[in-house]
């Protein structure tokens, strides 16, 4: 039951790290560049509009975070338990945010 990945420790070498470093720097440049361009908005319904800029910014940030987690933090080669911990973290994070927002979004007093 003890998930032991010590038997064959997967050591990621510097080459991977350098690639990831440049990917992250490129991502940073991209996200800054994207913020200076108006990417428009998606008028879903008359009351709900999704503008693309924050979506793109968050998407880039998330892919950067995923790279860091997978390679710098070695999660790609980690045990299932580590994955479970991460998934639990993301899940609770989203629970707090989304369930709180469920209140704010559906309040009928006009701030949204």
């Amino acid at each position, binding site marked *: 039951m003890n998930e032991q990945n010590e038997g064959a420790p997967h050591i990621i070498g510097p080459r991977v790290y350098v690639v990831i470093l440049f990917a992250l720097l490129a991502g940073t440049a991209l996200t800054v560049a994207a913020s200076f361009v108006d990417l428009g908005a998606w008028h879903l319904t008359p009351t709900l509009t999704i503008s693309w800029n924050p979506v793109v910014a968050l998407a880039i940030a998330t892919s950067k975070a995923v790279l860091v987690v997978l390679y710098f933090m070695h999660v790609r080669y980690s045990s299932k338990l580590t994955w479970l911990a991460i998934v*639990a973290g993301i899940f609770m994070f989203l629970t707090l945010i989304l*369930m709180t927002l469920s209140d704010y979004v559906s309040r009928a007093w006009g701030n949204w």
Partner: protein
Amino acid sequence: MSANTIISLPDQGTAGVPKKNYLTQENGLLSWLLTRDHKRIAILYLLTTGFFFVIGGMAAAIIRLELLTPTGDLVASDTYNKLFSIHGIIMVFFFLVPIAPAVLGNFLIPMMIGAKDVALPRINLLSWYLFTIGGCVELYMMIVGGVDTGWTFTTPLSTHYVNTNVIAAAMGIFIAGFSSILTGLNFIVTIHKMRAPGMTWFRLPLFIWSYYGTSIIFVLATPVIAITMVLIMLERVTGIGVFDPAKGGDPLLFQHLFWFYSHPAVYVMILPGMGIISEVISNFSRKRVFGYTAVAFSSVAIAVFSFFVWAHHMFIMGISTYSALVFSLFSMLVAIPSAIKVFNWSATLYKGSITFDTPMLYAFGFIGLFTIGGCTGVMLATLGVDIHVTETYFIVAHFHYVMVGGMVSAFMAGLHFWWPKMTGRMYPESLGRLAAVILFIGFNLTFFPQFILGYLGMPRRYHFYPPEFQVLNVFSTAGASILAIGYLLPVLYLIWSLKYGAIAGNNPWQATGLEWQTQSPPLTENFTVMPVMDHEAYDYEWLERQTLASQNLENQSQANQSQVRPKETEVPRAG
């Protein structure tokens, strides 16, 4: 290595508590303050939480005395508000939350899973220090004048309208919060990584399952109260406006963040109790818990679902009605695993062989009180009824039924059940039973009238109240004095038993858990030989077979003294 190496018989014949045990291993104050032994840390927690219980209890006593009359005769309104705030803060954050996890969990989890210690012993000690420091900050807060926000710190009252020591109170909770986080983290790692060979997930005692659920809540919910307390402190100090409606902040956001922790925290206060009750009921009916898997999963289900229900504290507070629907539905769902547990405990008794020792009486009390608490919880989760009964004495009665009636009964059951393991001595049985009955009667007398008061509409935290509520309040106060005896009596006889109690032996209850297969009080390292789990949890037939086998072997070896004993039959005895 066969399992019977870890078996030892109740050696009632041999006189005295084993000389070498975790209590006597080292001496001196420093050996306690710097200990990394989970059992000693449990004892430290027992002493500190006991101390805070006395403080919280005294506040409660003055509150109940004050409520004897409808006008504020005993204390001023200001003092009254400080009293119930202190009662709430101390009892919730410094008694109920740590009591079961930190005392019984620390003592038992490593032993139950067959480990020498928790995974991170130094962190364990650190969390006791954080808890104590947090408690000292609260004591400081009380000395310099107390706080009068209630334990819920409602904004903007707490941030802009009171001038009592909110910052100290919040700081104490913040620090103690990290104690909870580290305890929970430690337990999860221990349960995952430190189990003895053969101890698969479904051989774990149900105690461990419920503590696992508790730990999940500790780890995931407590950080949110930490940041909320930081926000409260900063809002008071620097005047940022995150919760201040005057600056555009939303005070309801505070409620969301606060209850995101504080509702799951309620399950922190009851889940461990459920684990204790599972052990006790199984042991005193000599039966495996009915529907082991269902009970195990219901613990985890309660822990997970508890995160989706927090806004049921805010149904009338102006949250969106649609959102209230969602939260009410989830609140209904979280009641189901609790119902499953209650029915399974009842069914465990079926065809058992039941004895009515003190822990069992407390367990019965727990089932009754918890069922009442749970049913009234369903009333509160029902959107319509909640409007009328929330913020009244109904809710006060409800959560006291769950947390005090439920959790404290369960804790007392656990304390009595494992007292022989902790100290090596038995408590006086008849006094124990008497105390259990007094507690049950006193509790119901105190809090049942409050249900009626609540439905009549008496709001909570009222210093003055309309005179027609006096009769019920007098009943409640009278009950509280009986309840106080129910608390005081065990304290006295448990202390008495430390010196004069009968010698318990290793396994006075003939229980199956690994913690009983070692000497009492245990050695610092818990087991002399690494235990191996080769049977299911609560396998009383296994225990009987082992007992018989050991007896036979003992007889044999007594018959032919000259023969060398086979290795497997070695019984680890006190050093």
